[in-house]
C-alpha cells in the first residue's frame, strides 16, 4: 500500500534549535517526495521536492531509500518557521500522478 507517515503531530522547539520533521513512506516504485507547508491563515504551498535537491528557507530533506524516509531538517529554527508541515508522495497509477499526504506535523518555534 502507498502511504506516508508523519509520526509526530506536534514538534515544539526554541528559536535557534535544530529541527527534524520525520516522514516515512511506503511505495513500491521509485518515489518522488515533497514537503508542503501551511502558515497560519495561508494556503498550502510547496516547500521543496527531493528531485530538485534544493534548500528552501534553510530547510533540506534527503531521500533515504533504505530507511524509506524523507525527513525535513533545519539547523537553526526561526519563529517564522512555525507552521503545519505535510510530507507528500507522488503516486503514479493508471497513467496519472496524484499526491498522497501524511497527516502533518505542527512545528511551533518559541522565542
Amino acid at each position, binding site marked *: 500500500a502507498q502511504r506516508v507517515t508523519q509520526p509526530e503531530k506536534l514538534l515544539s522547539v526554541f528559536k535557534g534549535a535544530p529541527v527534524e520533521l520525520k516522514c516515512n513512506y511506503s511505495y513500491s516504485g521509485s518515489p518522488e517526495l515533497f514537503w508542503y507547508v501551511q502558515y497560519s491563515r495561508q*494556503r498550502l504551498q510547496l516547500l521543496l521536492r527531493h*528531485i530538485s535537491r534544493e534548500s528552501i528557507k534553510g530547510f533540506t530533506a534527503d531521500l533515504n531509500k533504505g530507511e524509506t524516509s524523507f525527513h525535513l531538517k533545519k539547523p537553526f529554527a526561526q519563529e517564522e518557521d512555525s507552521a503545519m508541515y*505535510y510530507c507528500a508522495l507522488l503516486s503514479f497509477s493508471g497513467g496519472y500522478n496524484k499526491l498522497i499526504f501524511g497527516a502533518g506535523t505542527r512545528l511551533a518555534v518559541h522565542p
Partner: protein
Amino acid sequence: GAGVSQTPSNKVTEKGKYVELRCDPISGHTALYWYRQSLGQGPEFLIYFQGTGAADDSGLPNDRFFAVRPEGSVSTLKIQRTERGDSAVYLCASSEGAGGFDTQYFGPGTRLTVL
C-alpha cells in the same frame, strides 16, 4: 498573477441537502485536482482532471460525490444528500501538467459544515 480561487470560502448546510463547490484554477493549467482534508488529517485525493475529462476519480468516496470541468477551466464539485461525515475542508489545486516537476498550486479551500 491570480492564484487558484475557491468559492464559497465557507458553506454550512443541513444533512440531506445538495451542495456545489467551485474552483477557478490558474489560467492555462490543464491539470486540476480536488482533495478533502478532515480535521487533523492531511489532504486526501478525490479526483483529477486533465483538461475536461476526469482522468482519475478513484478517490471519490461514493456516488454522492461528482465533479465536472466542462470547458477545461473552472471545476465544480457536487455533493448530493450531504451527511455529517462530509464536513471537511475541500481543497482544489491546479498545475501545468501532472509530472513530478509540475508544482500543484492550492486554493484556500472551502470549509463545508453539514449540520
